[in-house]
């Protein structure tokens, strides 16, 4: 009888061990990474092709490929279908068809189609990473712009110029821009009795220059353990933090971290791998913030249930998050039970008197292998200025006259929260040149090396960051030197 009871209890314990994690863990949240701008993962992989031979008739077929950036969630697909239908109804000579591929496999799918000779004509929206991945496959639009008298004057010239790549020409026209700034949780500031961070460039904070030292001191006061001690207290317990002061929300890569302390590159003018001094200083600063002073979460904290499994600001347990405008897509509005009830945005601090607000920008491209560039460009013009697409992508229009409508939509979404969007608009003037996402030689491998460095720095205590940076430099040099 005793043996029988022991066996039964043993079996029960084994069952609990094998299945218990299901019952005892919090609901699963989708792991999110933002390798590219504006991408929110969809629940199920999407694959859709609207081509209808009967509807095409004898018209020239232009294929639009969606997925390298945003564009594959159900709401967006509905609008994209309408955009395509509207175009086709207006056309006698061109038939527009759309292929939508889930972002998780869009890059691989496009690469396979390229290799198979089944090349789409127009691709977008696509961010800097997507453009760099397929470098050499984009058409130079200069002649098409001239031939069609396309007016570039509504665009910021420096943003247009950022698409003019050496050896490739003008590969895109600005479509959407995503400036960066500091999101802050007003309730957590109020609770700590601290004033909100500045909303104008050049403003001071509590009489001090709004720089990263001030940000650090402020963040320490907003980082709290489970006993209520903040990070300035001698009793503060770094293993039991329940609220952090600051995070680089989805911007923890070396190039992303570094850019907050000034624009730079991991390659010098002679093509050698290099670690810029200001970036190295920033890596040490943020590393200490995670593992020494503990006012910024490391990956273990970021990915925990308490901190939103990566979406730290949206968890309601983070006072300040520096990231891009696209993060508005990850904040749950109060009407949908969002945990951040009262938030606003502030300007990024300066480093040694210089302010740099990193910029993400999306565009569309025409593939070089396309057989009918003139027809493609008619589609291109239509898509690049389409208001419905900008709205459904949550993208700030690159054309200034279209921006007020966009922010009006965000105000509606987050009502009654009132956000000072002028901060976002003003941040555009401080964008990073060169852009932190700009292509590097042997781009895919170089990018992987930076991602590996990012993982190491964000997960591992006790590192010598200077030594790790030199290792990264050597790895990158090897990658740059590889014969392709």
């Amino acid at each position, binding site marked *: 009888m005793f043996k*029988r009871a022991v*066996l039964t209890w*043993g079996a029960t314990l084994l069952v609990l061990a*094998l299945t218990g994690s299901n019952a005892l863990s919090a609901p699963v949240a989708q792991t999110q990474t933002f390798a590219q701008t504006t991408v929110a993962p969809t629940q199920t992989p999407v694959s859709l092709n609207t081509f209808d031979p009967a509807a095409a008739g004898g018209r020239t077929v232009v294929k639009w490929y969606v997925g390298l950036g945003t564009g594959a969630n159900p709401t967006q697909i509905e609008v994209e279908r309408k955009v395509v239908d509207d175009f086709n109804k207006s056309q006698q000579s061109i038939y527009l068809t759309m292929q939508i591929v889930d972002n998780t496999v869009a890059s691989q799918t496009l690469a396979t189609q390229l290799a198979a000779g089944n090349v789409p004509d127009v691709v977008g929206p696509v961010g800097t990473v997507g453009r760099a991945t397929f470098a050499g496959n984009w058409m130079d639009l200069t002649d098409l712009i001239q031939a069609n008298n396309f007016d570039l004057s509504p665009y910021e010239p420096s943003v247009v110029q950022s698409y003019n790549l050496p050896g490739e020409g003008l590969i895109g026209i600005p479509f959407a821009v995503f400036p960066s700034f500091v999101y802050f949780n007003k309730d957590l500031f109020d609770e700590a009795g601290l004033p909100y961070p500045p909303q104008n460039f050049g403003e001071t904070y509590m009489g001090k220059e709004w720089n990263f030292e001030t940000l650090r001191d402020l963040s320490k006061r907003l980082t709290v353990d489970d006993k209520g001690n903040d990070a300035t207290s001698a009793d503060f317990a770094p293993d039991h933090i329940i609220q952090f002061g600051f995070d680089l929300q989805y911007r923890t890569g070396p190039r992303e971290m570094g850019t907050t302390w000034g624009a730079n590159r991991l390659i010098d003018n002679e093509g050698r791998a290099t670690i810029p001094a200001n970036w190295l200083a920033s890596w040490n600063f943020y590393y200490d913030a995670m593992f020494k002073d503990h006012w910024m979460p490391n990956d273990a904290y970021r990915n925990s249930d308490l901190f939103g*499994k990566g979406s730290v600001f949206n968890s309601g347990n983070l006072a300040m998050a520096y990231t891009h405008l696209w993060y508005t897509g990850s904040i749950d509005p109060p009407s949908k039970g969002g945990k951040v009830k009262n938030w606003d945005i502030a300007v990024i601090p300066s480093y040694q008197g210089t302010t740099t607000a990193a910029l993400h920008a999306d565009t569309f491209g025409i593939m070089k292998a396309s057989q009918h560039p003139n027809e493609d460009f008619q589609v291109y013009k239509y898509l690049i200025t389409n208001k419905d697409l900008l709205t459904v992508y949550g993208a700030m229009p690159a054309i200034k006259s279209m921006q007020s409508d966009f922010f009006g939509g965000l105000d509606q979404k987050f009502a009654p929260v009132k956000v000072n969007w002028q901060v976002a608009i003003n941040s555009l003037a401080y964008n990073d040149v060169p852009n932190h996402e700009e292509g590097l030689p042997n781009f895919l491998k170089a990018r992987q090396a930076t991602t590996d460095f990012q993982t190491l720095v964000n997960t591992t205590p006790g590192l010598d960051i200077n030594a790790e940076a030199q290792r990264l430099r050597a790895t990158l040099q090897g990658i740059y030197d590889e014969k392709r």
Partner: protein
Amino acid sequence: MRLMGTSWARRESTWGLLFLAPWIIGFVLFFGGPMLVSLGASFTDLVLVRPGEVHFIGLGNWARLAGDPLVIKSLLVTGNFLLIAVPIALALPLLMAVLLNSTRLVAKPLFRSLFFLPVLIPGVAGAIIWKGVLNVHTGWVDLALTGLGLPGPDWVNDPQWVIPALSLIGTWSVGNAMVIMLAGLQNVPTELYDAAKVDGANAFYRFFKITIPMISPVIFYNLVLATIAAFQYFLTAYVIYQNTAGPNNAALFYMMNLYKEAFVYYNMGYASALAWGLFIVGLAITIGLFAGARRWVYYAAGDR
């Protein structure tokens, strides 16, 4: 009479082939064809995003593979995992099968179902859940350890704990092996145990001298499957670490490295060589296992 027999046999084989045709066509189109193409690609520098620049490079990819530090690292990670996970993948299902085979256990069908249940959870969902369960700050494993006064390791982020963590997650999917082990146990003739009991053999002796030898073909079968699965290990590590392969490449399994070459860098030529390299290594180890099996696997019928 003989002519009639030949004609009937021919007709039967024709019908057999006809019924098999869907599978054969599917295999040739979706497995055999791509395998041959990948073998050909392994001798080229095919990069998917540069389709116009493909060159025949002979054994270039194979020479690179032999000296690639990432391949060596990935083999070490895979080997390390194999040494930890495969014994667990054999011992744990055997233990569970013995438990389920016990005459003293009540509600056997219930426990059998419950033990098998985790197999039905999709691998991706399981990996995401486990990532939360093993979180150093909020995962219940570390919370339990902390409650017992023990330091909880950072399972997912500490390079030292990555392989043990993935091995622990692997226990989730031992249900299939358990069912096979249980079937093996139930086929052991009870007369052998009766005779051993009459001779005074205790439970320990009966287990190691009767049970293990009698189910050794089943254990061997599971050993081969678990070894091959260890070489093909990818999904859980990918879901947890995505393209990063963990801190310091601690989760750079052979398949992870292959995936990165093929679908992150698009180096299809080199990735094809890596895939065939894995096939050769897997084949060699399987042949080795079969050679060694002669010494410890017992077949009651005297052959395999």
